[in-house]
């Protein structure tokens, strides 16, 4: 019994999860600390205490009661919206994770996400279905679900093509993929703006909304709810989350149960050794980036195919946050596709907490972005945290065997 327990704590996976949990805790603590300091110097302690409670329990917030105190409990709208917002970050997280497994840092997820969004919206709005309602466009006999499918597929393909560019540059010309990804990100931001600027998909029906293009529902296209709206009534949830989870499982199978996955990981571990073993390293690098791009593209596609979100097309000055949030998700999940599901859900939970903080206190949602940034910062040296965990265990073992004099200067832990 006892032996089992020690081996569980010694396992590398356990330590990695522990390191992630520590990162999350420190992140939340830093967020709370900022609120606390503001409470002391600026607002009131009562405000700060409410803010801190919402940082941790925002998902369960049900507003305020008549006495003005915060109430907590199960909130179907919050849960449903959390699942809805988790969909794109799970997919961009998967995107970053797959590339990471092949030893590539895919900071290009925002660009791939954007290209996926643009292709999807273009297809969903320009193939007229039976329910087409854009003025001047005639409905056809194609059912909306077929258009939905084509649009999703098109988004994934566009993302894959965009992701393959840095992959090709890396494989053929040995250009650092981080730099290539940053450049392609901004190229895509300008391309998408250019494309919608000259397109006729700008929303002119609801003229109070300038700068947005039509929702896909104007063509009758929307992701099926798959009964989730019954469980979480009043929320934005739809079947996209199920597709995202299925894709995560598919990526897990790809990476752990197939030859291709093995080859991808081999290239990540040591590109040159893999080549020596007869694995086509260049092909695998391009393929890995293309898969990563397709996943990020699917994220953009599913987010906007929901039909209840609008795309602000003049996006040349900023990149979508969902793309960048894939990075912390993958880092938190230690590139494990199943872990990405939970990390993505956690990120969107923070997002929901942020909204509650904005609505209910004098603070605002950006505190959760600070928390996410702190978590990313910590995961940059999660290896060090892991080493510290290892170090403590080793110390304990070493202390019983030898008088470890040299270890005193390492790890900083007290003997």
């Amino acid at each position, binding site marked *: 019994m006892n032996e089992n327990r020690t081996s569980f704590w010694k396992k590398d996976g356990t330590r990695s999860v522990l390191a992630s949990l520590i990162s999350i805790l420190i992140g939340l603590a830093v967020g709370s600390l*900022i609120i606390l300091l*503001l409470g002391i110097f*600026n607002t009131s302690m009562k405000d700060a205490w409410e803010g801190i409670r919402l940082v941790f329990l925002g998902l369960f917030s049900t507003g305020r009661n008549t006495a003005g105190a915060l109430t907590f409990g199960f909130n179907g709208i919050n849960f449903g919206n959390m699942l809805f917002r988790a969909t794109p970050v799970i997919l961009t997280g998967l995107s970053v994770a797959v590339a990471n497994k092949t030893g590539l*840092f895919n*900071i290009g997820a925002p660009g791939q996400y954007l290209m996926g969004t643009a292709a999807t919206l273009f297809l969903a709005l320009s193939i007229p279905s039976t329910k087409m309602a854009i003025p001047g466009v005639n409905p056809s006999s194609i059912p909306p679900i077929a258009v939905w499918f084509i649009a999703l597929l098109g988004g994934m393909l566009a993302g894959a093509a965009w992701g393959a560019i840095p992959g090709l*540059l890396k494989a053929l*010309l*040995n*250009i650092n993929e*981080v*730099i*290539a990804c*940053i*450049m*392609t*990100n*901004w*190229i895509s*931001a*300008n*391309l998408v*703006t*250019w494309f919608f*600027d*000259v397109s006729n998909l700008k929303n002119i029906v609801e003229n109070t909304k300038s700068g947005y293009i039509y929702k896909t529902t104007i063509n009758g296209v929307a992701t099926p709810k798959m009964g989730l709206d019954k469980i979480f009534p009043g929320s934005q949830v739809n079947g996209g989350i199920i597709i995202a989870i299925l894709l995560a499982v598919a990526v897990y199978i790809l990476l752990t149960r197939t030859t291709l996955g093995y080859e991808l990981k081999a290239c990540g571990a040591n590109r040159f050794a893999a080549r020596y073993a007869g694995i086509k390293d260049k092909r695998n690098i391009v393929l890995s980036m293309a898969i990563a791009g397709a996943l990020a593209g699917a994220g953009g596609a599913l987010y906007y195919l929901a039909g209840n979100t609008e795309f602000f097309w003049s996006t*040349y*000055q*900023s*990149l979508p946050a969902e793309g*960048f949030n894939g*990075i*912390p998700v993958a*880092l938190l999940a230690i590139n494990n596709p199943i872990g990405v599901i939970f990390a993505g859900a956690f990120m969107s939970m923070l997002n929901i907490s942020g909204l509650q903080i904005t609505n209910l206190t*004098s*603070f*605002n949602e*950006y*505190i959760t*972005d*600070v928390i*996410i*940034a*702190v978590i*990313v*910062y910590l*995961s*940059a*040296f999660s*290896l*060090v945290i892991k080493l510290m965990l290892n170090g403590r265990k080793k110390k304990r073992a070493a202390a019983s065997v030898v008088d470890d004099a040299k270890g005193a200067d390492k790890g900083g832990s007290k003997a």
Partner: protein
Amino acid sequence: MSFLIRQTLIYAVPLMIVALAGVFAERSGIINLALEGLMIFGAFIGVLFVRIMQQAGVFETSMGVLPLQGFMLLSMLVSAVLGAVFSLLLAFAAINLRADQTIGGTALNLMAPALVLFFIRIIANQNTLQMASGDAASWFMIKKSMFGYGRGQEMGFLGSTFVDKVYLSTYICILIYIVLSIILYKTKFGLRLRSCGENPQASASLGINVYKMRYCGVIISGALAGMGGFVYAMTTANCTSNGDVAGFGFLALAVMIFGNWKPLNISGAALLFGLFKCIAASYSSLDINGDGVYLLAQLNINPNFYRLLPYLITLLVLAFTSKSSRAPKAEGIPYDQSTR
């Protein structure tokens, strides 16, 4: 023409100084992906400083030309100092903890807009921090009236290009740029700093403290990027801060790579990219030689084309010069004393 040169300079100068920030970090061996974040932070600090001082009544627009320009320099200094402080986060992670520099930089890029927007929302109750009253950018602008020229009087080509409607910060930045480039190439300190980016083990064997040199590189980088952020906000964003510098930090990264990590090439690249930015921003009203013909508007190229051109060119340059690219050899590799 003078409008074109003036505007190009306004865009090029922050690019140049922030690209030099990148050079100092990378030449010391630390990849500084956080330029964007540092700019955002610097812009916020500078604007906040001006706003607080104005609200406290420390300076008045009627206080005369020289004190006003001095005050602007002080604001630049404040944003540089706090930019340097913010960059310590990257330095600590990358140098002491041997963390992944790319992820560390990304973290700072996420942290800066989040922190900045969090505080802006609390201070101003909206997403943009601007002056409580008045138009800050025009306080600091040098105008011909300051030299006794009247409304109708012309200053001549040189005057109207380089003296009228310009900011002192432009020239200060160019001066700093030249001085720091000389320091990097012609002094003992610069040589040592560069050696740490090429072969830190060899530098250490000659008695150079690699940790100290890399800290210097990152701190100088943070100061320059923070200052560049404020200069950007003051000259192109009307002295406001909204947690965004429109990708200028990443553009500076492109400038640095395009300029092959060498100051002279970088200044050329910055001017080129600044010209593109200028054209994209004002192509429809740009009258190049003053004969009433709007050449660029007649070309009828979408402004987005000019906007994406710098990134595309950088990618192409990388593709064609990847064999001869002179990136510092040890950049991105954490220095470990025991591998000496």
